[in-house]
């Protein structure tokens, strides 16, 4: 046992990886095309699966005759509701069991154009398409309803059992806002329209399902961003045990909330495989199916009224939110809740009353999309705040500073804010953007500058009663480390960041770690990639797993040297004696000892973390949903061409309280991505419908941000060192999307004095608003 060992082959420049821009683990796989996505999964004898979708927005299914399709040569399986247990699934089962309302293959009724009612598997795509055409469905077409206002009228066509098509009424209610409105010096009310956006990740939803018919085991290779949730839904609807269903998350080509749920295609691929004698079945959605039949962002009518004192103190807020839910509930109830309750993280409001209505329509299904209600509320609230400040003759920043939350406070709905970098974010964004010299001072140039602020949770316990994440840190005899996490890297770089946390805590170089993630059979449970929860929750599990492994190693070393384990630690590849700060042996030597003749001790660390929260009472909105909270200030500078109505964003500044940047480069990339998505939502992302049919179901009609027109983006990281976060880190990224639309709308008003309250901000709307303003003046 030498005291000074030679340098390990594992030692790299990332000995203390936390806080360093370690390159992405998947980087080489990505740039060479070797990384395998569900899209790339292929097996011999694999069949092509296709979904039969309703051509009607609302219809009774009278009969389905599949005999001709089944007789077509090359068709290996056809399934309908008759082949299923007809068990409904949904995403808010724990809090809102009555909103579990979708069947993988509908039996009696279809409720939107694209609703699934059968599926086929065939030897090739052409045969599968032909088989779909041979399925004879008799419908009784029912009148449809497509607008929120129409759907809630008494006597409107009933889509489900819900009275007036309101799937859910959600009240958020604290103290006495009615009385405080009367006491207010000034009251202002505004109404906003937040359009429907679509996640549209570059990789469409893909799965390969295989049902081993004799052993009764299912494997699904999937593009899911929540593989354990997908497993749970498959097991429930197929009546299997959890350990009969294996969901393997491949590399995922983007999710943005759209891949959080099991879709009928996942269910169908497994069932088709069973009927086809166990042959694997691949279902890959077309881009059109992606746009029309996967989850979209809720369109929302957001009405908000605020009472303030002369000095700008907010006394009370009231309002209502109507969300176009489409045909099924999906994540709708909690999206709606989030759209109303995020404000408590941002502003100190004591008197509050808002009611949310999630309305069924015969449009496609609304669900989770990046921002989770916060993009809609962010636009509405942050535009509204600027309008109040303007009416009061106050600077919009001064008005906000008077009302924002701070560190170590409990909000009216009992959210516990510990570290809170909101003020610092605002200060830094103002300084970086040179706000003081620009605001209100560039009108002659038709330029303006605007601000928006936001906050975000780190997880939310919205889909289960707990939100635990697990980790296993297994150290091999040669000192190489397996890190198992259930977390689903969908491209944000969580495999890398979590491995950095594990390596740092274990005290070793990053290159020792191999990350195995998102396989429900071999990795610990994790609820999935959403609500900026992974770095915080799965990161804490990684930390605890590594700490446990380290304790096991030190236990052996302490025994060998007859020392107390408390006196030892592992830092930067060395076992050290803490008091003396002296190295006792290398990490490699310590592992040799663990796996030696005398000890033969396997090092298998385990971590399990469940954030400290309280359940939300959805009768009032009370509850501490997250173990920590992240904050955000964003500033946009714009230039408006008043002849064409074109708004050009010149520069964006984003200051983000992220606790601690585990991987600064990845953090920047997350923020830039959110800013781009925010630009898209502000200016052109608008999924349009006519009688339930999507009018722009492709990238030509539904424009997303492209290389031309991306402004300069400045990211400022504010590190508040959260005591509950792994190495102080909070979840991040999603929040940067929340204030963008309002910051831009506020900047537009600063530039040319018109206010846009209905997104997207189009040249037509700018010109119309300018004309109206001119009429008002004259």
């Amino acid at each position: 046992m030498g005291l000074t060992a030679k340098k390990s082959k594992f030692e790299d420049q990332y000995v203390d990886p936390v806080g360093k821009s370690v390159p992405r683990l998947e980087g080489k796989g990505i740039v060479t095309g070797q990384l395998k996505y569900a899209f790339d999964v292929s097996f011999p004898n694999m069949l092509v699966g296709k979904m039969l979708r309703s051509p009607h927005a609302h219809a009774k299914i009278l009969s389905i005759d599949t005999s001709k399709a089944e007789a077509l040569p090359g068709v290996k399986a056809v399934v309908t509701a008759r082949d299923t247990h007809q068990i409904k699934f949904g995403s808010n089962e724990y809090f809102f069991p009555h909103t579990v309302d979708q069947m993988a293959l509908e039996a009696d009724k279809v409720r939107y154009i694209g609703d699934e009612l059968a599926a086929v598997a065939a030897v090739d795509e052409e045969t599968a398409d032909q088989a779909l055409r041979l399925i004879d469905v008799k419908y009784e077409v029912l009148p449809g309803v497509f607008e929120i206002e129409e759907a809630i009228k008494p006597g409107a066509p009933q889509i489900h059992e819900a009275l007036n098509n309101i799937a859910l009424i959600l009240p958020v209610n604290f103290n006495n806002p009615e009385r405080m409105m009367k006491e207010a010096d000034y009251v202002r009310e505004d109404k906003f329209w937040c359009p429907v956006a679509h996640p549209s990740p570059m990789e469409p939803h893909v799965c390969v399902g295989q049902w081993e018919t004799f052993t009764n085991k299912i494997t699904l290779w999937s593009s899911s961003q929540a593989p354990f949730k997908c497993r749970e839904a498959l097991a429930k609807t197929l009546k299997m045990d959890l350990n009969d269903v294996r969901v393997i998350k491949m590399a995922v080509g983007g999710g943005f909330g759209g891949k959080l749920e099991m879709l009928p295609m996942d269910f169908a691929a497994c069932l088709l495989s069973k009927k086809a004698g166990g042959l694997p079945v691949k279902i890959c959605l077309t881009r059109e199916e992606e746009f029309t039949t996967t989850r979209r962002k809720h369109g929302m009518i957001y009405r908000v009224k605020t009472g303030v004192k002369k000095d700008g103190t907010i006394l009370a807020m009231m309002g209502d939110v109507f969300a176009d839910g489409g045909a099924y509930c999906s994540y709708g109830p909690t999206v709606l809740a989030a759209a109303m309750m995020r404000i408590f993280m941002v502003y100190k409001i004591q008197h509050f009353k808002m009611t949310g209505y999630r309305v069924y329509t015969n449009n496609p299904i609304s669900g989770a999309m990046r921002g989770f209600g916060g993009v809609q509320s962010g636009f509405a609230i942050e535009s509204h705040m600027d309008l109040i400040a303007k009416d009061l003759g106050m600077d919009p920043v001064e008005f906000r500073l008077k009302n924002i939350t701070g560190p170590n406070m409990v909000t009216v709905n009992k959210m516990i804010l510990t570290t809170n970098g909101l003020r610092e974010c605002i200060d830094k964004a103002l300084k970086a953007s040179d706000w003081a010299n620009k605001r209100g001072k560039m009108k002659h140039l038709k330029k303006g500058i605007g601000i928006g602020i936001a906050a975000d949770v780190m997880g939310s316990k919205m889909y289960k009663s707990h939100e635990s994440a697990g980790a296993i840190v297994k150290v091999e005899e040669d000192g190489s480390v397996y890190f198992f996490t259930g977390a689903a890297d969908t491209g944000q770089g969580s495999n890398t960041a979590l491995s950095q946390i594990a390596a740092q805590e274990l005290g070793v170089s990053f290159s020792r770690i191999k990350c195995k993630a998102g396989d429900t059979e071999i990795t610990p449970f994790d609820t999935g990639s959403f609500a900026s929860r992974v770095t915080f929750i799965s990161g804490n599990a990684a930390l605890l797993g590594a700490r446990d492994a380290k304790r096991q190693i030190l236990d052996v070393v302490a025994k060998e040297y007859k020392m107390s384990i408390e006196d030892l630690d592992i830092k930067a590849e060395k076992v050290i004696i803490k008091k003396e700060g002296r190295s006792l042996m290398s990490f490699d030597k310590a592992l040799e000892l663990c796996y030696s003749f005398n000890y033969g001790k396997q090092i298998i660390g385990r971590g399990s973390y469940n954030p400290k929260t309280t359940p939300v009472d959805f009768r009032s909105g009370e509850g501490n949903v997250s173990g920590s909270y992240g904050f955000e200030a964003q500033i946009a500078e714009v230039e408006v061409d008043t002849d064409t109505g074109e708004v050009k964003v010149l520069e964006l500044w984003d200051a983000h309280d992220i606790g601690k940047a585990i991987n600064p480069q990845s953090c920047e990339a997350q923020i830039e991505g959110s800013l781009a998505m925010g630009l898209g939502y502000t200016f052109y992302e608008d999924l349009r419908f006519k009688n339930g049919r999507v009018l722009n179901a492709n990238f030509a009609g539904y424009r997303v941000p492209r290389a031309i027109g991306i402004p300069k983006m400045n990211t400022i990281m504010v590190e508040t060192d959260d005591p509950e976060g792994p190495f102080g880190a909070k979840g991040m990224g999603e929040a940067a999307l929340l204030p963008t639309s309002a910051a831009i709308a506020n900047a537009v008003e600063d530039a040319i004095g018109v206010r846009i309250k209905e997104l997207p901000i189009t040249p037509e709307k700018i010109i119309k608003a300018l004309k109206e303003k001119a009429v008002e003046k004259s």
Partner: protein
Amino acid sequence: MQVNLNINKKQYSLDLVGNETLLEILRDRLSMTGTKTACQETECGTCTVMINGKAVLSCITLAANVQGDQITTIEGLAEGDVLHPVQQAFIDHGSVQCGFCIPGMIMSSVALLQKNPEPTQEEVEYALDGNICRCAGYPKIFDAVKEAGKKMKK
């Protein structure tokens, strides 16, 4: 029909019906799954490959029409173990997130830089405007392309 394709400097002799796209041939017949597609209708740029040095969409290129041409895919860029400067720059600058658009994005970048190793910001934007990236805000991609160009010039 018998068709000979030159892909990444190797000859492939294939029996085709005639209506197969180059994308289908690469992915389904030759298992070269590095080339992705996100729309199959020319709107996303994900399936970009190079044909005789030009960035081309493989989803609308008939395989039978590119006989005798030099076809380069993402699998053909690295020299042995050494990544192409564009590939390396995309890693170094953290330009990759989910990565699904990246093979196409890199092929468009290489096609640009081989002609113009010192592109202006505007030239980079025009060259990449056909390639959608949904994760990134593009700045890190722009940085990578410009730096790779400098290395390619050397």
